[in-house]
């Protein structure tokens, strides 16, 4: 008597039946040895499912969080640069097309100044290599909060770029100023902390 192969026994456990399963099922019902094997298979799978859950011995969240922050920082620099370029291009276009004299309107001048200040602060911040520094819990929390808020401002800047000119300029100016304020605070956090510990 030919008994069912392991593959055939496993196939009988699957939800969707395959050709040949009907004959295998018929054999299973008639063959005590195969029924016992099928039952052992069932028990083995149940025991596999009941194996104790293994837990990590080390907390890996700090490494994950550090990578997420580093990536955000890199993205912020990229996005900040791109938004700056886009805003600068649209202001320049406004100057070329809109005003033969080539003068920036007051709002545009202020946006350009805020952008320049934002870029200078980004450069200052990058010199401190914040991703390589260890911060105490409270300082790290403040820095994280500021970075989250800068990321939100960057998302709003991307949206503001799509607006019609009239509302866009006011919105851009407000957001660039907010970005500068937040970056200022972030630089302060890192610089103050670095001075305190003599780094």
């Amino acid at each position, binding site marked *: 008597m030919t008994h069912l192969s392991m593959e055939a026994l496993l196939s009988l456990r699957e939800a969707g039946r395959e050709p040949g399963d009907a004959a295998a099922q018929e054999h299973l019902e008639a063959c005590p040895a195969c029924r016992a094997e099928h039952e*052992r298979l069932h028990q083995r799978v149940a025991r596999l499912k009941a194996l104790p859950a293994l837990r990590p011995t080390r907390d890996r969240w700090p490494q994950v969080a550090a990578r997420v922050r580093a990536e955000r920082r890199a993205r912020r620099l990229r996005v900040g640069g791109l938004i700056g370029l886009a805003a600068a291009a649209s202001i320049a276009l406004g100057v070329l097309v809109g005003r033969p004299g080539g003068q920036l309107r007051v709002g545009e001048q202020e946006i350009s100044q805020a952008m320049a200040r934002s870029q200078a602060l980004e450069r200052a911040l990058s010199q401190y290599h914040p991703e390589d520094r260890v911060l105490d819990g409270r300082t790290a929390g403040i820095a994280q909060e500021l970075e989250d808020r800068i990321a939100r401002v960057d998302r709003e800047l991307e949206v503001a770029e799509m607006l019609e000119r009239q509302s866009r300029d006011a919105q851009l100016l407000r957001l660039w100023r907010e970005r500068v304020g937040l970056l200022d605070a972030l630089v302060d956090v890192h610089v103050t902390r670095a001075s305190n510990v003599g780094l």
Partner: protein
Amino acid sequence: MNGTRVMDSYLLANAESVVARARDGDEAALEELYRAFEGPVYNLARRICRTTEDAEDVLQETFFEVCRSIGRYREEGSLWGWVRSIAASKALMRLRRNKYRDTDELQDEVMGHRREDTALRMDLEAALERLSETARAVVWLHDVEGYTHDEIAGMMSRTPSFSKSQLARAHQRLRRWLGEEVEA
């Protein structure tokens, strides 16, 4: 996949609001996701990978990916199902990268049927550990996590037949190593 939605509410009661905050970049929410799924992700990774170091690396890679991609999670399936698919994929990538030798197959091929196998009654943990990387991954993904052969084939870039034959051979070995063989 059955049971994964139940797992969501079991592991993370307020999943919807945590996901919404995580999408907004809230680090505390991302950490909540990590704390909720850290155990099951590590367990899956450790059952597939050979070493604890590899499993911990898979845990880290998985959550880095979760944090990066949470905005793309569409809530069509369960959150645990989504996290688990990332973890399984990272664990399988780790296997491919490490290219471990399939030790049980090597031994069987070189030495023929190991006569001591029937006398050697291992416990299930040890027997599972002794399976080849690929076989153990298929056993775990199919029998414990409930993936279909089609899904496993997709994750491994192989055919469903490959997954089926790996599973059958793995069960033959487990049966032998666990001393469950019965003379017909």
